[in-house]
């Protein structure tokens, strides 16, 4: 519970720090997403009140950008790069394998809340294509055959 309150206190601080700044909404949403892992409706309401803008404006911005998520993500976020360099090196197959292993579609989270699968654009490691990232770990020069073992590692930990 205290953890919960701490988060809301932090959000209040962030809003205070940015209130006078031009174009404050984006940076505040970004920090809110860092604090809570997503920007749920109640967080959006607090931001709208804090910055003195309408909720529909906050919602409009939050839904426009793919980085903002309205629902919480899994403990491990697995992003397979579908940038051009990775795509021509068959990253689609890696993504398909990941989805079939976990039984979900890109953008979804497993029922146990462990994994979220995402198709991402260039992760900037094209030299290692095809590339997958799980949280901060990077897996390069992947083949779909390696996917099950990688997943198993996270399930075990």
């Amino acid at each position: 519970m205290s953890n919960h309150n701490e988060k809301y206190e932090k959000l209040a601080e962030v809003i205070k720090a940015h209130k006078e700044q031009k174009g404050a909404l984006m940076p505040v949403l970004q920090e809110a997403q860092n604090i809570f892992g997503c920007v749920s409706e109640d967080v959006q309401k607090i931001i709208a009140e804090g910055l003195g803008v309408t909720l529909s404006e906050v919602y409009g911005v939050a839904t426009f950008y793919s980085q903002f998520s309205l629902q919480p993500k899994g403990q491990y976020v697995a992003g397979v790069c579908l940038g051009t360099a990775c795509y021509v090196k068959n990253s689609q197959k890696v993504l398909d394998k990941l989805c079939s292993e976990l039984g979900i579609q890109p953008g979804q989270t497993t029922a146990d809340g462990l994994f979220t699968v995402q198709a991402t654009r260039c992760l900037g490691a094209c030299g290692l294509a095809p590339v997958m990232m799980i949280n901060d770990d990077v897996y390069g020069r992947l083949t779909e055959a390696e996917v099950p073992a990688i997943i198993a590692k996270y399930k075990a930990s």
Partner: protein
Amino acid sequence: MDLFRAHVLVCGGTGCTSSGSAELIARFEEQIAKNGLDKEVKVIRTGCFGLCEAGPVVIVYPEGTFYSRIRVEDVDEIVSEHLLKGRTVQHLVYKEKAAEEEQHATLENIDFYRPQMRLALRNCGVIDPENIDEYIAFDGYKALAKVLTEWKPEDVIKEMIDSGLRGRGGGGFPTGKKWQFAAASKADQKYIICNADEGDPGAFMDRSILEGDPHSVIEAMAIGGYAIGATEGYVYVRAEYPIAVKRLQLAIDQAREYGLLGKNIFGSGFDFDMYIRLGAGAFVCGEETALMRSIEGGRGEPTPKPPFPAVRGLFDKPSNINNVETYANIPLIINKGADWFKSIGTPGNSGTKVFALGGKINNTGLVEVPMGTPLRDVIYKIGGGIPNGKAFKAVQTGGPSGGCIPAEHLDIAIDYDSLTSIGSMMGSGGMIVMDEDNCMVDIARFFLDFTVDESCGKCTPCRIGTKRMLEILERITEGKGEEGDIEKLEALANNIKSTALCGLGQTAPNPVLSTLKYFRSEYEAHIKEKRCPAHHCQKLLNYEITDKCRGCTACARVCPVNAITGSVKEMHHIDTTKCIKCGSCMEKCRFGAIVKN
């Protein structure tokens, strides 16, 4: 500054960091200290060296020995052999794919680097980007000092116009002209903006500059601010670039500390400061008007031009926006002069261009060549050709706005105008190579999928039109193409090109049009013969078992739909009506008995 006998440069760009360079640095420091060399040898984390394929990369100076794909286990050997005893560790030295024996060891004699001319990337991989003193030691902030103390704003603009520098963000608009427009607008406040949104998936030159040489962008923006009369700058960076953001912020802080940003810079009376804004994953925000709406904190939707940013831009004030690589060239132009810059490249296309070379190519990485360099040299001399003995099929430039260039145009001299003339474009510099296994219809589908995903939805031709094109392409790749589909695609493409509001929609049909132009027969094979000549499109493949089959039953056991029949030690068969074309059997067969066609 302390004097060191040797320097160990470890690449700390995103590519090499992904392949573990941070652990290398820690290990080097530990081992160097252990061997009592810490007063003699210095470890420096640099920006990207360019040859990401060989990462993590380590260069040891003064010799310039180029070590590649170094693992933590290799560090001890480099320290005890090279740094302690002065003996190169031959088996860790980078070897060219084509080279017969070990011959070279240094940056200067590697084929990948020899034809290159590193201007915008001059400091990347050379200096420590987190230390402003190193930038200053390489003539950093000299151009700003010169401009602020000796030149009038008009002089700066004239020099930029004379240099012929064109915007590296894709459009190729003359930078000096743009500055002239912004300078001519009268206002109490103007802004100068750097576009570091780098949306082309598969391109990373702007990121590498920010990671490897952030001060060059800061210096150039201050120069631009002086020229147009702006005292505030914004850098809009993709959120996916955490290392770049961190180093840029550090660089801004250091520049402030040194008085190179802030009030009364160099005692000239000129004030200038700048701020970072993060993107949030919307490709359309790379478009300049959308980018400004995003900095203002709104939805990043483009607005019609005119009014141009030079008249009414960020916060409704006159603004100038340039790309990262454009800025990186500017201090050099001021220091060495417009005539020098103009002498590089081709008439109307001065200077160099950085490309992110990727895909089916031996040397993936960052490449900078003079304008006018033949495409063939980039692919074969620098890129080292196509891996695994496969045939070159096409190179894609310009990202989702660009097109595919076939082998028949490999001898073209790369510049803005030549690429446009063959139906592609320079774009921001992504260059993705494809081989015989890539299906061009599928590549067109891939890019349309991207634009449909990224269309902001503000105007109908882009929102609905690209979706219709994607549906047709999906049908074709799934074997449901119909007579007349090609004509429908062409009609839609031309319609969208001429009616969409912003550059995203206007250029979205290009990948389709260029593949139709050069690879029309592949479209026809998909539609008329239900065949994918590259054997890529899953739904059009037929798996067959040949007489190499030994009857091991491995395929039958792995098939998820029981489409394979046959007894032990006898030839197996695939029931093509049951087969879902998953490819598992082919992967499993140890005798290479299963083929797809």
